[in-house]
């Protein structure tokens, strides 16, 4: 069993108006030293070991569904969970 943590964020060329809104709100709260806020998506997947390498499967899932590679990039961490 694997625990996969996937982080999806916008490419640099993509506007992030939600991140900017949070940035502005933090400034209004007095945190004026906040330079930027990037808002992304976080997924936690639990995968049973299958016949395919887990990295290849996660890459494919990210490319096909979890991220839109036209405007987003992704990275992930894979941890092997101890079998119970």
């Amino acid at each position, binding site marked *: 069993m694997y625990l996969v943590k996937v982080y999806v964020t916008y490419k640099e060329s993509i506007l992030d*108006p*939600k991140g*900017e*809104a949070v940035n502005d709100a933090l400034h209004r709260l007095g945190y004026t030293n906040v330079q930027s806020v990037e808002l992304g*998506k976080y997924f936690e997947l639990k995968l049973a070991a299958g016949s395919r390498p887990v990295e290849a499967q996660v890459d494919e899932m990210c490319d096909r569904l*979890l991220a*839109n590679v*036209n*405007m987003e990039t992704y990275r992930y961490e894979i941890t092997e969970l101890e079998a119970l």
Partner: protein
Amino acid sequence: MIFAVPVFPGSNCDHDMVNALRDVLHAQADLVPATTSDLTAYDAVILPGGFSYGDYLRSGAIARFAPVMTAVQAFAAAGKPVMGICNGFQILTEAGLLPGALQANRSAKFICQTSELVVRNSQTQFTTTYTENQHIQLPIAHGEGNYYCDDATLAELQAHHQIVFEYVDNPNGSVANIAGIINRAGNVLGMMPHPERAVEAILGSTDGLGLFKSLLANQGREVTHA
């Protein structure tokens, strides 16, 4: 010409579309469920606006894996006309049937207004009833209609006359004022504005009629869009 209008959970412009096709244009049109896997009985498919699958994850990201989209892929590959309006456009980009992506509006606001557009290509099978550079008024209603593509894709779109509609007063931040594009083969069109909401004088504009009239007029004809 028989139109299929796929209905996804969360579609909300499907009945407006059928109203335009049946009641205004007196064409045959069926609402077909997202579980449909066969569209061979139809001559054209129009993906309607709305919030398919709640727009969870990204607009159109879940809808593109609905069974009907496998049929739409085959339909498009066979050269038959496919049109995506608003959420339908988002689904077509997610499905890879059109290049680019729709990102959040630059203002971070949902925009609901009438927009002035320029018809940049009146040689497509969807636009022959318009004249080149004609200005038309169509409603827009979206939070994520900001068209994005990289520079290489934009150059391709321009080189092959694939930009069909442009905004006069870019409301959402779209690259190159893009409001609607067509694929290279000329049979898949996506646009954020709503032609089906501009088909009767009582709706404020009849400028949307031209798209449907073009499709009906060009059925069975070879139309090159170059």
